[in-house]
């Protein structure tokens, strides 16, 4: 019988990167992206998330969606740590353009430049943009 290469034992772990580029409410993209992240994490894949462009608004503190009748899923980003999703990156340029600082965000993130994001993308197997 052929021997199974060691790296396949217990299934292949791929490095997934989710790129969130849209504002949280108004379209379903942001919420669906988060759903996919949670599913991927439940299957023990390696996950990192990038917030850029209007996507940085997804993790703003103190969101209140009661007046627009949508779910305030920004709270769910705070649960990601328990799903072992700990690599959250925000693009510096997008934050600066919108006057947002790290204190305005509801989860701990790493702020990196557009160039650094480019390099990070090269290290991932799967990149999904929402």
């Amino acid at each position, binding site marked *: 019988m052929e021997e199974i290469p060691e790296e396949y034992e217990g299934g292949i772990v791929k490095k997934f990167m989710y790129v969130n580029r849209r504002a949280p409410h108004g379209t379903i993209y942001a919420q669906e992206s988060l759903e996919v992240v*949670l599913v991927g*994490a*439940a*299957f023990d894949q390696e996950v990192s998330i990038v917030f850029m462009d209007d996507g940085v608004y997804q993790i703003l503190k103190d969101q209140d969606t009661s007046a627009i009748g949508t779910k*305030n899923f920004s*709270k*769910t980003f*705070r649960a990601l740590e*328990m799903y072992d999703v700990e690599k959250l990156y925000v693009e510096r340029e997008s934050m600066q353009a919108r006057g947002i600082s790290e204190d305005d965000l509801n989860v701990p993130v790493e702020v990196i430049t557009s160039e650094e994001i480019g390099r990070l993308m090269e290290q991932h197997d799967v990149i999904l943009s929402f």
Partner: protein
Amino acid sequence: MSIQINGKVLETDEEGYIQALDEWSPEVAEYMAKEDDCDLTENHWEVINFLRDYYDEYQVAPAVRVLTKAIGKRLGKDKGNSKYLYQLFPYGPAKQACRYAGLPKPTGCV
């Protein structure tokens, strides 16, 4: 699909999860448990109440692995393990307990 509790009709999805989270009451859990031939003890309620708090805080029904870990943190190691939770909820601790707690089906559970 729907269930009837105290003369009030609650819509459920095809797997029995109630659709409107704010329509939940402890009677919902009692009713669902009875249908499953399950007697709800204090230990069951501890998990159900934990899940409701969890959902309130994070707006998500935790996957079983996360639930087990989180229960361990809050209620101690002797409760934060699969064996204990499966004894209470043999249909799958996350799926069954979330249904009783009036939450959606956990994300990532198939």
